[in-house]
């Protein structure tokens, strides 16, 4: 029996040696590791323009260790190709490469505004069918030129794609930008009664002489914020030097789709409204006025938030109640008020509730105009009142009901802790 087993083992070895032939074998150094893909659509030529950002591993870590050269050589290479389809354009890439373009470790896809308004269906299939892309892909929309965008530099990480990826994946602070990846996008797209959205990235150009300069942040006041579109009013404040600008990425706002077509952009504060409803806000700070009306502001941090969407259909008319519960701490005070009275606490909570309500209302207003239901109210109606939903005609929800939908927003804020001090240090001087 043992000799027979041995014989079989030999047979296996034989089969192995003569049939196994390393078809899929390939070394890491034979791959061009794509770190980011930028995709845009050229409507005149009806072509896709694909820009890949490929890393040269030789310029990383190990090179620095040996020669002591501080990574002066740029580790990224950009290649732009065009094609009738996304896949076709991607194939063209290989004409410029000594290694096979390898997309499996690409985590960042930047979609140009033109492509997004043309319809994401043009690329969705390619991003899900082939085995080298995963549904956890991070897809972003940009209003800038995609090719120019990928030329940008990075502040903290080794390269722009890394920087964008880390920005997106960071788990300890999330606000001001939409939280969605490819899977979320597809799920929302496929679910009737829901529309998808994606985070937005844009380029902030700066002079290379001051790469460490921090961007001036937007301050909100009183819930009414200085609406800035694509950072225009900030740019105005900055010192301009026209030559040799280097762009740095900024992830801010949300791109809202109607079905798979771009409908419009939400800015960072409106995005907060979306995030409050989606429960995916982490470490968000809201600025409110002093509860006693004195000059100065209070900043409240949101630690924990939860939301529920309640639905009911009364007399054949759907009604939505959004209940948001959140709690947080005081994290900053510029006014000289003693906040530690029950009334002031209640007032602060109320004004925070108003601020949040304002965020959500703004989103609702915009999306009603665009006829896109990114909150998924329709989906909730479908889940809870399937009978009502099935009687609706196609497109009826989005075009007729949603814009006039009765939505009540209830926010309950709780201030739990005060930080390390109670009254501010300057309290006595300004009394």
């Amino acid at each position, binding site marked *: 029996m043992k000799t027979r087993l041995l014989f079989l083992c030999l047979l296996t070895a034989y*089969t192995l040696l003569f*049939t*196994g032939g390393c*078809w899929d074998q390939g070394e890491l150094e034979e791959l061009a590791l794509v770190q980011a893909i930028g995709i845009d659509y050229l409507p005149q030529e009806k072509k896709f323009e694909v820009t890949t950002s490929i890393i040269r591993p030789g310029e990383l870590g190990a090179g620095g260790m040996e020669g002591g050269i501080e990574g002066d050589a740029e580790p990224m290479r950009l290649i732009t190709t065009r094609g009738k389809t996304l896949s076709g354009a991607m194939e063209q890439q290989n004409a410029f490469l000594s290694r096979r373009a390898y997309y499996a470790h690409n985590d960042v896809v930047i979609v140009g505004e033109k492509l997004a308004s043309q319809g994401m269906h043009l690329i969705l299939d390619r991003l899900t069918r082939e*085995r080298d892309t*995963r549904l*956890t892909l991070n897809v972003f929309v940009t209003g800038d030129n995609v090719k120019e965008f990928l030329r940008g530099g990075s502040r903290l990480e080794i390269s722009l794609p890394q920087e964008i990826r880390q920005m997106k994946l960071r788990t300890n602070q999330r606000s001001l930008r939409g939280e969605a990846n490819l899977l979320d996008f597809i799920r929302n797209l*496929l679910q009737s009664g829901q529309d998808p959205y994606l985070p937005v990235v844009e380029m902030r150009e700066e002079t290379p002489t001051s790469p460490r300069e921090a961007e001036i942040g937007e301050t909100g006041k009183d819930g009414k914020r200085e609406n800035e579109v694509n950072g225009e009013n900030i740019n105005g404040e900055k010192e301009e030097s026209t030559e040799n600008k280097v762009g740095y990425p900024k992830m801010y706002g949300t791109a809202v789709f109607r079905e798979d077509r771009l409908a419009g952009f939400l800015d960072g504060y409106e995005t907060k409204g979306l995030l409050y409803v989606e429960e995916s806000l982490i470490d968000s700070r809201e600025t409110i006025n002093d509860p006693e009306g004195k000059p100065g502001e209070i900043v409240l941090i949101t630690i924990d938030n939860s939301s529920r969407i309640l639905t009911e259909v009364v007399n054949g008319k759907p009604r939505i109640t959004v209940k948001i519960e959140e709690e947080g701490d005081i994290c900053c005070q510029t006014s000289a008020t003693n906040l530690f009275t029950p009334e002031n606490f209640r007032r602060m909570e109320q004004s925070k509730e108003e601020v949040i309500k304002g965020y959500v209302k703004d989103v609702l207003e915009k999306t009603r105009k665009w006829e896109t239901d990114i909150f998924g109210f329709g989906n909730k109606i479908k*889940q809870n009142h399937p009978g009502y939903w099935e009687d609706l005609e196609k497109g009826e929800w989005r075009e007729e009901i949603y814009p006039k939908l009765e939505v009540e927003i209830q926010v309950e804020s709780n201030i739990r802790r005060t930080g390390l001090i109670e009254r501010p240090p300057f309290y006595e001087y300004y009394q």
Partner: protein
Amino acid sequence: MQTVKISTYQAATLLTITMLATSILLVPSNVASEAGRDAWLSFILGTLLGMLTALLAAALAQKHGNAGFHAIAEKVMGSLPGKLLGLLYLAFYLLLTASLIREFASFMATAFMPLTPISVFVLLFTVSCICTAYLGLEVIARLSEIVLPVIVFFLLLILFLQSDQYELSALLPLLRTPPENILRGAFVFWGWSGQVFFLLLLYPYLEKPGQALKASLIAVSIVGFFLTAGAFSLETVLQYPLTERTVFALLAFVRLINLTGFLLERVDAVVIVIWVAGAFVKASFMLHITSISLAQVFGVTESRHFLLPLAALNSALSIFLFESSKELETFIHFLWPIITLFFLVLIPFLLYFLSFPASKRSSAPGNKGGGQQ
């Protein structure tokens, strides 16, 4: 060598792997395309159907003094018709094994090694499996004993790693799928849960035949649990329309695991482990079963001589039977449940029905077997 005996636990693990190995990867998307959001209900129903099959198989065996299926067939139908039926079943085993091997190869090629010719997987896999089948049922049973905990561990790990993604509301609205679709889904799953029928072939080798029914019911429940839990997770993570669009739903599910901080991302290798280990044991078991049935039908004592020709036949069949993976999928989805119904339920039921007058004549073993339940 005649006294090969396997324990109840081994029988249970063997049957579990037979049902679980290939279904966990292929069936969820097929069932989802029938039953949609309520696929989990289809799986529960399919599990119940599997349990009925187990009951039928156990009843049939106990009526005939714990004999194997082919012996029963010859006893009930007479020698020649019984042997002819045995031949029919041999064709069925061949079809099952060939499609299993093809599923295996097709999955490996689609998901992991697209450039490698499918025949490489088929040949290597089959040759490796006959090595195991060669060593007999005892070795296969012991192998299944080790492999099943591994599979179960990895399946639980997968389900656990995604547990923060579960969105229960995605299961709503409940039960809006037409009942006939849910039933059709259950029927598709039955093509696998019905394979608990192979219990009938294990009967002569059981240490304690009285516990066979228990073992098979446990096996069906384990499989039912994992498939239902799998369907449940798929519905809540991938969510409905997407579940039916993926070919290998489990693979899609695993590819989503992304715990970057713990280096637990891109753990597709887990699927290879589950899939190769499970399919390996199942194919070895099937090859062994085919060879012993062949030996029994032709009255040969040494069944192992059949293994090599069988392996050759199976490899050839698995390559030439299906033109493309779509054909294979259609076969699994539409044809396989009907074949299963015919072979694993109708014929055993017929035999059971036919054996009533026979049992009157020799009622003692039948009653005794019934009492053990």
